[in-house]
């Protein structure tokens, strides 16, 4: 197997993008990544498109073929990869394996979703289609609802408090306010969403015990990377970012069938695989992008990937250990919480963010000093399909 590196990365600002079609967004992000890689008029051998809902939301299928045509990547191989909110991560994995195997040299991976085209009602229903069609979906359960039930269990077992959740929310919104690609570029005021009598209006219960600002927004957006063998990448001008390891694991569809529903086994297994392949350990990581679709997930994942012991993640967040400048900066981009969560784009956007970090290209207020390694976790379903990537800066 060949070593594979990211040589180009690009994304468009996430948010409500009424003026753009899904294909516009995929195309804009792809061109940014291709230009960043310095491909010029050259094409790629293959393109993988991560997307969850074009068939349901846009009534459009076979979007990878459309993108190859739109960008004139013809006759490149083109595939759409659907894996719920982990579609982006799965698309990256497919590209990685294709290059590592020696089958293709240059591959474009792009993830995108246009969720604001439909009403909130419809978007919530669309995301809920990943729940079990007989045992869960008919009851009206939503992903925030799943997260609410998970939070209650986590609070009971590990003593996580609303203060801990609040620390994640405030941190990620603060960082999102500094990120021009973020959907919600707005720092939050603790008083306004927690302490004051107005907090119940500003930050109402959404899926008890989770409140509005414990949830990521519903976003439009796209992100893309170009990858190639490390040997070829070393000849380029920008420092290549090695995909040093990846892992993927699945778990039961329904939470109730897990021996311990608070144990996110797929996160642990996927991350262990990624660390083993990279020959690194959690304490070696400079910066991480974890899948904080809900504040509780950042806390739980920070434990399951090995940054903190079980039950310590909430306290670590409240103590500032996961802040920019802290022991292990998590979601310096603002995370899903503030950057947004266009479901098919997220797994790719996480890799784009870490690539910028490892190339030391970000402004001082977001650049983790001397960042050498990064971790991403892309969480599908409610933890039933998880991908993790370990990335490493390569000096030329």
């Amino acid at each position, binding site marked *: 197997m060949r070593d594979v590196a990211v040589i180009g990365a690009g994304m468009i600002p996430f948010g409500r993008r009424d003026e753009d079609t899904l294909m516009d967004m995929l195309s804009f992000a792809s061109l940014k990544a291709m230009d960043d890689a310095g491909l010029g008029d050259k094409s790629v051998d293959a393109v993988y498109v991560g997307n969850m809902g074009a068939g349901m939301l846009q009534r459009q299928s076979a979007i990878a073929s459309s993108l190859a045509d739109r960008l004139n990547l013809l006759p490149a191989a083109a595939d759409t990869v659907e894996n719920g909110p982990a579609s982006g991560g799965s698309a990256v994995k497919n590209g990685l394996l294709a290059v590592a195997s020696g089958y293709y040299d240059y591959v474009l991976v792009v993830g995108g979703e246009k969720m604001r085209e439909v*009403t*909130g*009602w*419809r978007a*919530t*229903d669309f995301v*809920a289609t990943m729940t*079990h069609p*007989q*045992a*869960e979906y*008919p*009851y*009206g*359960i*939503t992903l*925030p*609802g799943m997260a*609410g*039930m*998970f939070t*209650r*269990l986590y609070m*009971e077992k590990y003593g996580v408090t609303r203060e801990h959740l609040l620390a994640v929310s405030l941190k990620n919104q603060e960082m999102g306010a500094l990120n021009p690609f973020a959907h919600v570029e707005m720092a939050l005021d603790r008083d306004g969403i927690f302490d004051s009598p107005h907090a119940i209006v500003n930050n*109402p*219960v*959404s*899926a*008890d*015990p*989770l409140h509005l600002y414990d949830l990521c927004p519903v976003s439009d957006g796209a992100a893309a990377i170009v990858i190639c063998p490390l040997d070829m990448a070393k000849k380029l001008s920008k420092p290549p970012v090695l995909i040093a390891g990846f892992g993927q694991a699945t778990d*039961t*569809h*329904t*939470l*109730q*069938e897990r021996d311990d*529903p608070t144990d996110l086994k797929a996160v642990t297994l996927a991350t262990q695989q990624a660390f083993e392949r990279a020959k690194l350990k959690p304490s070696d990581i400079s910066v991480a992008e974890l899948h904080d679709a809900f504040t509780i997930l950042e806390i739980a994942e920070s434990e399951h990937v090995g940054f903190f012991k079980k039950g310590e993640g909430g306290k670590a967040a409240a103590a500032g250990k996961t802040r920019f400048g802290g022991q292990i900066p998590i979601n310096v981009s603002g995370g899903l919480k503030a950057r947004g969560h266009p479901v098919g784009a997220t797994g790719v956007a996480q890799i784009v963010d870490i690539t910028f970090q490892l190339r030391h290209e970000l402004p001082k207020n977001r650049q983790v000093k001397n960042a050498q390694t990064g971790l991403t976790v892309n969480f599908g379903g409610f933890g039933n399909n998880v991908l993790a990537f370990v990335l490493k800066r390569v000096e030329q």
Partner: protein
Amino acid sequence: MKKEIAITAFKCKKCGRIHYPYHDRCLGCKHREFDKIKPEGNAKLLTYTVIFNLPWGFDQRFLVIGVAEFENHVKAMGQIKADSVDQLKVGMTVIPSWEPVRVQYGEDVYGLKFEPVE
């Protein structure tokens, strides 16, 4: 008339693990043969939430949903007959019933409902 709870769970013939919903291979030992069992008795509430941002198809202000474990260890999700989570507590007993849980294409869809016991 009270309707029978139309859920079938599956007990592995080899290791005894109980499954709901159905799997073709046991989650514990990968065995492929199961005895069909029905949920029995009342249930114990394992977790719950109240959702205020409802999906398409629900024309109401909020939904209270939870997961409960029956006396014979079948675990299942259902809607909870409560106006507020203040009435609920993990570990409390709930009485199951089979009632309409939503309307689709003008028809009632039946499912589990749990009524908390004081």
